[in-house]
């Protein structure tokens, strides 16, 4: 009988540990069981991507619709080329959509915001977003401000 209560409590400990790991995975680290699943790739060139990194989020109207999967330098144009994966169920982005690099909050991380356009055709896998706006770099902004002051 004594052995039995011991085994039951050890069983509860194991169960609690397993449940805690599940909570850590799903609730705290936000791992989804469905997995990343499918998505289609869209490219965009930017003059300056600022602090954008791989796994930064891509959002439309503040709702996350995908993430940045690769960043490289386009050696012909010497611009940054960002590859992002958009979820498959977001199939209504028109070809004249624009992409901006935005900052969440004052000290927050940077993300890509997509503003849909008016065309009827939608973006397909491998398409390129042409209308882009680079990240806001504080030093450049200060530089421009000082330049304007001097020229006044």
């Amino acid at each position: 009988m004594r052995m039995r209560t011991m085994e039951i409590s050890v069983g509860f400990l194991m169960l609690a540990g397993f449940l805690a790991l599940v909570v850590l995975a799903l609730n705290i680290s936000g791992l989804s069981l469905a997995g990343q699943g499918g998505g289609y790739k869209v490219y965009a060139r930017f003059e300056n991507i600022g602090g954008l990194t791989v796994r930064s989020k891509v959002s439309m109207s503040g709702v996350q619709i995908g993430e940045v999967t690769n960043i490289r330098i386009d050696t012909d144009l010497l611009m940054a080329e960002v590859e992002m994966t958009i979820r498959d169920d977001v199939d209504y982005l028109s070809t004249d959509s624009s992409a901006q690099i935005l900052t969440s909050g004052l000290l927050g991380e940077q993300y890509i915001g997509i503003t849909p356009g008016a065309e009827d055709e939608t973006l397909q896998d491998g398409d390129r977003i042409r209308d882009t706006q680079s990240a806001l770099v504080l030093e450049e902004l200060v530089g421009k401000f000082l330049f304007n002051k001097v020229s006044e």
Partner: protein
Amino acid sequence: MLDWIQSLGHTGLSRLAAFGRAGQLLVQALVAKPAPVMMFPLLVKQLYFVGVLSLIIIVVSGAFIGMVLGLQGYTILVDYGSEQAVGQMVALSLVRELAPVVTALLFAGRAGSALTAEIGLMKATEQLASFEMIGVDPLRRIIAPRFWAGFISMPILTVIFSVVGVWGGAIVAVEWLGIYDGSFWANMQQAVDFREDVLNGVIKSIVFGFVVTWIAVFEGYDCVPTSEGISQATTRTVVFSSLAVLGLDFILTALMFGEL
């Protein structure tokens, strides 16, 4: 002068011999696979003493550490107007650092010292010798189950510590300080990565469990079999395992997150 050098050499040699004995004990305890039928009840008993009975202290300290983190994080972050980030601060510091380290320190104090004292007393009362007399290997019967019990229960306790700590932080931040709970959890889920943060924390705790139990079992097995020797061995267990945990934590952190 020569005496001093001799005593230095003696200390060095005996330390080295102790390390050798510790390694020997480890190999023998791990290699000595007891028959699973006999091992299982012994292991369950040790898991109960080492794991289940440590649960209370782990849960209580986890909740309070999470609450303190929530409170401190809020008072700092509110100055920058980014108090929503308190969720990710609490979760990251718990999952990466505090849960493995504090659990290991509490475990060393709560379970490690008990292991050392128990084995030391067995040695002092010549129970270990009598096991050998009746043809039972004390390494199999006494050391191996205790070793495995510590090794298994540490990651479980660490994961429970993390979850309880995050809930404690959530209670303070969301319920008392009024942070919007949507942004609290969303920021946390955005910042915490399962493989990078959670699994690395669990790996840390596995290493700590291994080291703390090893030190505890060895100090007990190797102690001077007198009441004074047992008390010294128990103290050494707590001191050495705390130092080992803190030192190893720095090395592991540098390897995992430091991009070395």
